[in-house]
């Protein structure tokens, strides 16, 4: 599990590498939340291009971060999910709630 951060203007870019499941999600959650608090940003871009596996724990992780971003009036974007990740995003109907940057 690896989470890396960068900035794009007013957005925190969160690059997640590897697998998101119940085991890895809690560590990712803590790292993302503390970084988002520290940085003077409003929006979050979750870069999923290097996520190789995700189950419903990943949906929980995304929705939880979306709620935090929305609390401060920001925007959340999911960037470049792989086809197998898109499938679970579709099943969860998360696509209707969050902007997708394919």
């Amino acid at each position: 599990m690896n989470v890396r951060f960068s900035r794009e203007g007013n957005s925190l870019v969160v690059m997640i590498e590897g697998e998101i499941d119940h085991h890895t999600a809690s560590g990712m959650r803590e790292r993302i939340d503390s970084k988002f608090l520290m940085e003077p940003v409003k929006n979050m871009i979750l870069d999923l291009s290097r996520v190789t596996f995700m189950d419903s724990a990943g949906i929980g992780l995304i929705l939880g971060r979306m709620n935090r971003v929305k609390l401060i009036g920001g925007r959340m974007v999911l960037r470049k999910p792989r086809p197998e990740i898109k499938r679970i995003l579709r099943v969860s109907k998360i696509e209707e709630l969050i902007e997708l940057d394919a």
Partner: protein
Amino acid sequence: MQPINRMRTEFLSKSANESFARVVAASFAAQADPSIEVLADIRTAVSEAVTNAIIHGYGDEEGIVVLNCVLYPDLIEITVEDSGKGIEDVEQARAPLFTTCPDQERTGMGFTVMETFMDSLEVESKVGQGTRIRMTKQLKSR
């Protein structure tokens, strides 16, 4: 229909074993040469079932989770069993978005994902005795 192969593995209800279990199940299914999509579906469904056993079956206690796979010529049957708390109301647990732990960002989507990604899903549970999830998936050849 006669099975052509079977395997059984058991492991402690530690969350680190979620990835172990889904990789084992998918590797076993791979010998039937299914598509990459079918293997991805199996990985995801097994991950959900094993996570349920660990979080809801055993919670803070430690127990054994059993993963059983039976391979038929064009189908795999996967069961995930725990001897934990059991589910009081299976119908409610299977309902989309129902969750007993929203504070941990559990979405209540586990059963929905299993139902969507597999071809059949049966849940047997007895309070105080445990839960058994049986799923099947058609393995179409490439």
